[in-house]
């Protein structure tokens, strides 16, 4: 009997990503994020104040879990879990990438150097998911949403807008994820001598893959998710006031758009990204 089968009959439900179902599938799109934190109440207070998220709490088996909502839509999950004993660990956001067939994509990932961290599990409303680490150790999850993937709209302020992968060899990592999601991969211009790539599907940019800085002894491969904000400067200041930290001060990114990287009071890093309605450049399909 597999572990997945043994725990399939979970005594809790997670909400659908889309209500009503979208009927859409967008391979490789970031469709969800889960925060693991030792203090759920503190996390709710922080993110609720920062982004106006509201929360629906549930008891997820032996864990407390809250679904973050914005404008009536579920956009993220927060799981309270004790910090593992032994070693040093910190709170983190887990990035979920859309897959129409988790088992198939998982097998491809494992065949190309990934490791399985948590096997397939099905939640009737949510869908099927598993957690993997890629060949460089960056942790991510696959999700085949029961209600389809969120449609391709421009996120509003307070929603996830972007995700970036930071790796020792962005090119090799892009090749790995291309195997999984058939991404189109574009080299993005840079002035820092490092490799920066844009990963797209359905003719929309879904993520970037970026070389870690060369003095990377204290860096490890990871995914970083960005929330759309109206002002990176003001939001970063608010993060500080709420007990978080600013890891990358607000700065211009491509074409002058502002972004910052911050950490919540428990240390979970995430990004802030400004985006104006006219910044998107729609391409003919």
């Amino acid at each position, binding site marked *: 009997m597999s572990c997945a089968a043994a*725990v399939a009959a979970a005594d809790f439900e997670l909400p659908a990503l889309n209500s009503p179902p979208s009927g859409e599938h967008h391979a490789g799109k970031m469709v969800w994020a889960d925060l693991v934190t030792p203090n759920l109440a503190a996390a709710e207070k922080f993110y609720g104040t920062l982004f106006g998220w509201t929360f629906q709490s549930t008891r997820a088996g032996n864990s407390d879990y809250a679904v973050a909502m914005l404008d009536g839509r579920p956009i993220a999950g927060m799981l309270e879990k004790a910090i593992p004993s032994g070693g040093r660990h910190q709170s983190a956001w887990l990035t979920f990438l859309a897959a129409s067939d988790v088992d198939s994509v998982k097998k491809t990932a494992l065949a190309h150097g990934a490791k399985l961290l948590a096997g397939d599990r099905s939640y009737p409303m949510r869908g099927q998911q598993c957690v993997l680490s890629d060949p460089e150790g960056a942790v991510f999850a696959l999700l085949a949403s029961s209600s389809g993937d969120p449609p391709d709209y421009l996120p509003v302020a307070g929603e996830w807008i972007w995700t970036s992968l930071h790796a020792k060899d962005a090119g090799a990592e892009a090749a790995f994820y291309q195997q999984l999601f058939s991404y189109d991969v574009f080299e993005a211009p840079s002035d820092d001598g490092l490799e920066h790539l844009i990963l797209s599907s359905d003719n929309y940019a879904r993520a970037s893959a970026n070389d870690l800085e060369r003095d990377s002894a204290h860096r490890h491969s990871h995914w970083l998710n960005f929330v759309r904000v109206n002002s990176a400067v003001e939001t970063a200041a608010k993060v500080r006031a709420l007990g978080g930290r600013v890891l990358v001060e607000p700065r211009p990114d491509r074409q002058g758009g502002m972004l910052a990287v911050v950490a919540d009071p428990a240390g979970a890093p995430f990004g802030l990204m400004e985006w104006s309605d006219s910044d998107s450049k729609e391409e003919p399909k």
Partner: protein
Amino acid sequence: MNTRNRLRVGIFGAMTLALLSACAVTGVGVEGSVGYDGGYYEPSGYDYGGWGVGYRVGPSRCCEHRDDHHDHPVNRGHAGRAPAYHPAPAGRSAPSIPGRSRSH
């Protein structure tokens, strides 16, 4: 406890141990449990900041704030190396994120 009962207890214990072992994922992973396993603690002690000047990670944007004069990807591979990935066809520029709002 007679021999039959001891045998039953032993079998039950072995099956429980086997199930728990099956749920323990190897490597640095999340342990299987009856709880939700979507959360994952990252190792601490790493630097998530310290980005250098010119370290740009976002999607390309449309024209209004353009400060790049070379924003068309060339897909030559990094530093002249053949890329490990299959590059998008030459001549195609990187798309941006969706621009359609929900109200439309």
